[in-house]
């Protein structure tokens, strides 16, 4: 039976429900069933719900995504680190135009999370969507995406995601199937280059500081040479030449210098902003200065870099770090700023249940700086800090841990599930 189109919001949240204009009854049922299957997968500990929710939606309504994507020009953003921020920055840059732009700005990046955003989108219009690394290959075709923005690939949640090479190979199959697809990608990450090479790719050289997950050539498995750029001595695979690169805090686009003054901290956010501005300029035709001004206005991204209140009236700055590449960037920043810091680590299903990567992160950078080990896995952190010879205290609750630190604004670096809980309680859903 055909259902009349309608739009509904959950009271108080301002978030659209799945029941909206563009979707048929079958598609709505599929999205709900997919979300339920994902929830079941998570609570029974079988997985994180990414695969199953997409499969269920596909089984019930094979054309759900095709239907939901109709009338929208869709950009998909993916990476191991920075996809939520890059999506937010690109959305800000593209919104300087006249067309409506839909985006999953809360970081719901699985098929079941994309569906309600698409259903609520105004059309004709644009959509800028963050997509989980493993979900990306499954949604490019049904959504008829016109642009992919690909940041970086490194080790993350090995218990769930598997090895980096497998993710890169799945991305590459997408590019091989779509040699005309426009991709804006990081030229300095061997896994990303291998994945995006077959497509029509605009490369941006960002430099790669975390190289521990890119020791071997993705093409022939020989050891890569890492000079100023990477190159494989065995098969010739190398960093592509490009007129676009990041020079300190200035993005150079084909000779045009675009200074990036960000409201977000850290070197890693310059990478995110450079990709976002490059995509907005080269694909969406946004003026470079206008795009740079738009990204400069972003100072919190779905709760990242927000502050939360402490019991003594101070506030703590919240950063999210999920894997060794992300942690090493955050630690460099906290060292440079000499910030008292809580190291809060959970290892629940959504975090990845294996925190062995703690031993690949240079926590030695905390020597001489006030530090607290926190989270469900505070004992793992405490032992790691002990062997790094970092003086520290131990407090499982992250906000109480921050309370024990000196300074006007201690930093609370936390895993995904802690971050999600803090955002749920203190975050502004529209930020």
């Amino acid at each position, binding site marked *: 039976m055909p259902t009349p189109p309608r739009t509904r919001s959950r009271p108080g949240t301002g978030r659209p429900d799945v029941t909206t204009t563009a979707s048929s009854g079958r598609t709505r049922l599929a999205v709900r069933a997919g979300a339920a299957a994902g929830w079941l997968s*998570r*609570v*029974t*500990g079988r997985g994180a719900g990414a695969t199953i929710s997409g499969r269920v939606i596909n089984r019930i309504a094979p054309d759900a995504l095709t239907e939901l994507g109709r009338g929208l020009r869709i950009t998909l953003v993916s990476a191991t680190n920075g996809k939520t921020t890059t999506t937010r920055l690109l959305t800000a840059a593209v919104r300087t135009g006249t067309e409506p732009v839909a985006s999953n700005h809360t970081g719901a990046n699985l098929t079941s999370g994309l569906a309600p955003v698409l259903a609520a989108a105004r059309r004709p219009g644009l959509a800028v969507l963050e997509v989980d690394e493993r979900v990306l290959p499954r949604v490019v075709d049904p959504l008829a995406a016109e642009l992919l923005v690909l940041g970086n690939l490194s*080790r993350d949640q*090995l*218990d769930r995601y598997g*090895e*980096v*090479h497998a993710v890169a190979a799945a991305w590459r199959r997408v590019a091989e199937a779509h040699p005309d697809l426009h991709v804006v990608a990081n030229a300095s990450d061997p896994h990303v280059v291998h994945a995006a090479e077959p497509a029509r790719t605009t490369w941006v050289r960002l430099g790669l500081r975390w190289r*521990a997950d890119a*020791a*071997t050539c993705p093409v022939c*498995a*020989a*050891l890569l040479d890492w000079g100023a750029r990477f190159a494989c001595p065995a098969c010739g695979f190398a960093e592509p030449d490009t007129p676009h690169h990041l020079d300190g805090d200035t993005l150079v686009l084909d000779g045009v210098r675009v200074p990036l003054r960000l409201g977000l901290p850290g070197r890693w956010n310059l990478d995110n902003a450079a990709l976002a501005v490059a995509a907005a300029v080269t694909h969406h035709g946004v003026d470079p200065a206008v795009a740079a001004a738009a990204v400069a206005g972003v100072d919190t991204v779905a709760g990242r870099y927000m502050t939360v209140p402490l019991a003594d009236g101070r506030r703590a700055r919240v950063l999210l770090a999920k894997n060794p590449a992300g942690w090493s960037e955050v630690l460099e920043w906290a060292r440079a700023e000499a910030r008292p810091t809580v190291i809060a680590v959970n290892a*629940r*299903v*959504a975090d990845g*249940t*294996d925190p*062995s*990567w*703690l*031993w*690949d992160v240079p926590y030695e950078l905390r020597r001489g700086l006030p530090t607290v080990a926190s989270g469900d896995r505070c*004992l*793992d952190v*405490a*032992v*790691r800090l*002990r*062997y790094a*010879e970092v003086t520290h205290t131990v407090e499982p609750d992250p906000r109480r841990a921050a309370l024990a630190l000196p300074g006007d604004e201690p930093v609370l670096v936390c895993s995904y*599930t802690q971050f*999600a*809980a803090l955002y749920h309680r203190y975050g502004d859903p529209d930020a």
Partner: protein
Amino acid sequence: MRESALRIGLVYPELLGTYGDRGNALVLAQRCRWRGVAAEIVEVPAGEPVPAGLDCYLLGGGEDAPQHLAAAGLRASRAALVRAHEAGAVIFAVCAGFQLLGHSYVAADGTVLDGIGLVDARTTAGATRLIGEVVVAPDAPLPLLTGFENHGGRTTLGPGVRPLGRVRAGGGNGDGPGTDGARADRLVATYLHGPVLPRNPALADHLLGEVLGPLPPLDSVWEERLRAERLAAGSRTGLARWWQQRRLARG
């Protein structure tokens, strides 16, 4: 007390370092230093031969493609490794490192990767990956061990070697008899990551003791607290395990 520094070799960390196994080297080095014994970590970069003159050789876990490169390097260095072992060095191998010490590894597509045959063991790729907390009961004097496994290998030991211990929870060698790893004179191999030595200070001291002789005790309060917590997490089975994961999944 020895005069020279204990030299701890971290073999091919770029290739065999996917699961934090570098931590094992740091734990051995620090537990020497805290006892007043100088120690240094010698990284053996991929592409170079493994030197013979080290006191410990650590091999960690790695991804499939890098494992081929690591295997080639180890085969080329076999003589040096055997010589060092016979001269008193300790070998400690985890996961892919363990597989490469064996005779062979047969991948899912049938490709055979030759190991160095230092341990009488053969591995084939299984249909599923074994992922999760593991508890292993080794022979005395070692206490219960805790670790985290993430591998697709099924390793069968030959008559020439005994296992590190019996698996109380988790998969371990995954070949049927419910054992994990391998153990010989001055050689321990296991599937346990975590990494395993920060969680099991007694195993770390056992390895050091094989080189240094009897060791004075060391305060390991935090390590033992972590070990107790992980043993409890790994020992939950059936309904209790399901309930725990359900609670964890709630976030």
